[in-house]
């Protein structure tokens, strides 16, 4: 602790300016200020950079949910075209497709809650499929894993983005 030469209040050793009068105070070192990663991350420019990256990551949830929606609707159409006896199945698949369309468009505005919902619904439906027919677990396993990874990363990015906005006092979009 030292005293401000201009107004006399106590000033932190590391302070470059007096927090009371705003005038420069002499600090121990006169060399350039070294900004580490954490400090840069908390500056206005650093926050902008981080927010941009997180938004992009979270936005992938939109693409992912849209792909699921389109796949579901295509499958529903195929079922219906194959045989009118499969009407019940195609209605079920179609309802889920419409649901994912809704989620995808919600994800455009708010990827964070939409990605959580999409993940929960998909895992539930896959579990239900697996019980009805255990062979479905292996079907499209790679696609399922990609979808889960994208959604989980979107959720993490969404959470971080919102916290960043909260900490900096900016209203998130």
């Amino acid at each position, binding site marked *: 602790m030292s005293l401000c030469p201009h107004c006399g*209040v106590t*000033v*932190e050793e*590391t*302070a*470059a*300016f*007096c*927090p*009371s*009068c*705003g*005038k*420069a105070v002499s600090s121990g070192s006169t060399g350039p200020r070294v900004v*580490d990663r*954490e*400090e*840069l*991350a*908390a*500056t*206005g420019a*650093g*926050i902008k950079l981080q927010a941009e990256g997180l938004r992009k990551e979270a936005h992938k949830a939109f693409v992912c949910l849209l792909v699921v929606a389109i796949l579901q609707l295509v499958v529903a159409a195929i079922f219906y075209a194959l045989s009118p006896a499969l*009407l*019940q199945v195609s*209605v*079920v698949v179609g*309802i*889920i497709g419409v*649901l994912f369309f809704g989620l995808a468009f*919600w994800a455009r505005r*708010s990827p*964070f*809650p939409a990605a*959580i*919902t999409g993940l*929960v*619904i998909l*895992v*539930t*439906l896959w*579990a*239900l499929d697996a*019980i009805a027919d255990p062979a479905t677990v292996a079907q499209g396993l790679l696609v399922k894993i990609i979808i889960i990874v994208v959604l989980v990363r979107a959720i993490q990015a969404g*959470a971080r983005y*919102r*916290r960043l906005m909260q*900490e*900096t*006092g900016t209203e998130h979009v």
Partner: protein
Amino acid sequence: MQDAPEPPTLVEGPAASSLAEEPAAPAFPRYCSGCGAAWEAGWTGCPICARRGDGSSAAKRTEEIEERPLRRSLSLYFALLATSLAGVIATISSGRPDGPAQLFIQWTVQAVDTLLVFAWCLAARKDIAPLVRATSGLRWYAFAAAGSLATFVLASLAVEALVRTLGIERMKLAEPVFEAGHGWPALLLMVSLQPAIVEELAFRGVILGALGRFLKPGEAVVVSSMMFMVLHLLPMSFPHLFLMGLALGFLRIRSGSIYPPILLHFLHNLYCIFAEVHGGL
């Protein structure tokens, strides 16, 4: 900019003197000690150079604050899903989709769900206690009663449409209970009262409360409604279950109490029983 002249003091006497005696609010810091920028009220750190208000440099990111409530809501959802799926597996492997065995499985699932939800309520008692203590205004119970009629009519129309157009079999709630030799008390308890209390505590209590920690209220209601909808495992009923979930969620948010949504859910299920026993709409 010139300083505005001091407004004339209107209050005189003891009130004025007590005001004057109060210590002035510390206007400290007025400038950032890192970069000299004018400090604005409400800043916890300087947005220009990242210096904290207390003078410490570098903002350490706070630990993942959202993680615990997110985990809590998802873990309860998946625990309930696991019991439901276990019930489905048990029903399939018992070989008979109807009859007393099925009823026994279903009631076991409901009993386990009750225990699970109470355990999670205990873990989330900070969120749940205010909801259970708050009784809310009478008008919210009136809204719940009116809402239950609306959701019942909506659900009946949706089921009727599915039965007529797709030939779906109507789900029987009362018949298996009566066939197994139980009376009205068991029917009301297991079909109306237990689901109303346990599902509301789970979805509008623990899950909505936890989601509300890191989502906006409207978003939390939508996500919890989606979970409520999917957990019923009946894709055909998704549309009206979702709308019912929304109604229950908003009732819980607006009233600040868990009882109005419990009442709505209880009455809704009650009407469903009466409709089945007395021949529907």
